[in-house]
């Protein structure tokens, strides 16, 4: 390849900094922006995801709208063009994940939003983003059942798919909010982590969280921490597309900046060219694993609620954790010592933290809106307890597990 003097073009500006929105587009924007730190607004979970994405600097969305995630696409279709960003309605979800991966390689911060059926279609592309170490975010607002299921009903059935859905041992970073405010915060975190770790980060929402409205007060933009990908500092001909520092984080050049690299879903060497050498293949797979496992401290987030003196622990995520909190309040008023552990980062699974926090409890209850997913992880981590002290609580009929359901279970085991 002849050396050409290619002009370095800066990546597209993330966005105009002064514009941050806190309400739906057709309300009085300026007024809300000026007062957003002081004023609570009524906001939907999906809206919070859209505004989180904008505040994190997302400037490219490609997707295929699907209930219960549609509002994310709807809002971004109105807001992105105003800020010089791009919104593309794709023909399907396979194209959507490919489009956001490509856009990211061209320097954009990209995101898509979908639900179960679309998430299944995206799995191949998610694996591609992971092996090519391309930052992007997939929001999956979960709905009930296999296939088309029940579009407007909640379930937590994609917990394992988010980790294992793509073939071939791919690493996963998956975040799981439990409120509208947290949907905003974890969307920003998802974008930040995708940029930092050069991978596809998944944000799992429950249908109820996505559709729920709550009074929220968003932080001032000055207090929002945005992380951008590390850019290469070496001359173009020294650049390796897959190169790591001691924390397994590697710089990323964009197309059009003068750096030459090859992108393929095949197992590749550090320049990105396909390889069948076992040494290089092993190194690549090791790096994918290590960039997660060496940074657990940065990745893991877990809420420990009233666990100090608890003899019974409830382990659950998302909307079910809110039912648990209500149940805990009722149980505590009757003198039952019960607490909650709630992972905000669901993958990588917070093994060490959970093992430590569950050490002193007698019984663990795992309520979830599926036929048993989180329970397997807890089973793995509570081998020191007898089987009868690990209580499963599962529901998959489109209804939530209520505080009373959990309270009954707490009383049964206490």
């Amino acid at each position, binding site marked *: 390849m002849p050396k050409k003097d290619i002009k370095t073009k800066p990546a597209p500006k993330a966005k105009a900094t002064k514009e941050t929105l806190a309400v739906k587009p057709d309300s009085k924007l300026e007024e809300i922006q000026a007062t957003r730190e002081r004023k*609570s607004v009524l906001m939907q979970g999906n809206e919070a995801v859209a505004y989180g994405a904008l505040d994190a600097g997302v400037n490219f969305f490609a997707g295929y709208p699907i209930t219960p995630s549609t509002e994310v696409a709807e809002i971004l279709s109105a807001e992105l063009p105003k800020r010089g960003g791009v919104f593309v309605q794709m023909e399907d979800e396979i194209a959507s994940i490919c489009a956001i991966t490509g856009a990211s390689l061209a320097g954009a911060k990209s995101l898509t939003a979908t639900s179960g059926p679309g998430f299944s279609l995206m799995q191949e592309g998610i694996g591609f983003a992971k092996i090519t170490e391309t930052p992007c975010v997939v929001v999956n607002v979960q709905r009930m059942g296999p296939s088309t299921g*029940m579009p407007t*009903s909640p379930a937590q059935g994609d917990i394992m798919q988010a980790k294992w859905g793509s073939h071939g041992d791919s690493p996963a970073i998956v975040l799981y909010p439990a409120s509208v405010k947290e949907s905003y915060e974890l969307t920003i975190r998802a974008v930040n982590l995708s940029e930092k770790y050069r991978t596809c980060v998944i944000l799992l929402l429950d249908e*109820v969280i996505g*559709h729920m*409205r709550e*009074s929220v007060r968003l932080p001032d933009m000055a207090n929002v921490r945005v992380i951008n990908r590390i850019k290469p500092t070496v001359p173009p001909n020294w650049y390796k597309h897959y190169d790591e520092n001691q924390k397994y984080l590697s710089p990323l050049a964009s197309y059009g900046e003068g750096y030459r690299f090859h992108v393929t879903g095949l197992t590749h060497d550090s320049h990105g060219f396909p390889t069948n050498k076992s040494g290089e293949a092993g190194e690549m797979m090791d790096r994918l694993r290590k960039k997660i496992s060496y940074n657990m401290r940065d990745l893991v987030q877990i809420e420990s609620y009233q666990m100090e003196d608890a003899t019974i622990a409830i382990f659950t995520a998302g909307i079910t954790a809110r039912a648990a909190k209500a149940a805990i309040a009722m149980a505590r008023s009757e003198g039952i010592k019960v607490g909650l552990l709630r992972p905000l980062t669901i993958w990588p699974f917070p093994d060490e933290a959970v093992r430590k926090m569950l050490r002193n409890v007698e019984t663990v209850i795992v309520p979830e809106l599926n036929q048993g997913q989180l329970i397997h992880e807890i089973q793995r981590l509570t081998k020191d307890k007898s089987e009868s002290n690990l209580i499963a609580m599962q529901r998959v009929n489109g209804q*939530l597990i209520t*505080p009373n359901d959990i309270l009954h279970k707490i009383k049964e085991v206490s």
Partner: protein
Amino acid sequence: MAKSYEIRLSGSGGQGLILAGIILARAAVLEKRRVTQTQSYGPESRGGYSRADVIISDEEIYFPEATNFNCLLALTQEACDVYLFDLRDTGILIIDTTFVKNLALAAENTYELPFTDIAQEKLGSAISTNILSLAFLVQITGIVKPESLKQSISESVKAAFIDVNLKAMEIGFELAKQYKK
């Protein structure tokens, strides 16, 4: 949980109950209360069941769905049949007698009015039944101030429909005042 107030607005798809829920929730936000609003509906845009839950509280709201209502608004017979049993003993039941003909059990505080017929008669269309009955509910329960509801309606509906909805609101307030005697 003590200071929280749970309201369920129920009926069928197309009656505007989710919008009514959003308007009530926004009115509570204007009063700086904590609030959650959730909904449940089928995949169809009209017909089928539909409900909106609003919880208004001064403390953190853990579970966002209403499970033990302080107030239930039922605009259809099916909704009334299904949800009446989750109304508290002291709870307020408001039913639209245009569609609700039978009560499965007697609630202590029951308010019965043909809201849909009234909207049809006074506004020329049943479309504003949601706002009319919501205003009635607000006046009866006192859960938010009438002015907050008014402001919330103005902020929540399209400009072209503000007038008709405010008119529906006034009728709802008036009906409640007369009902209270």
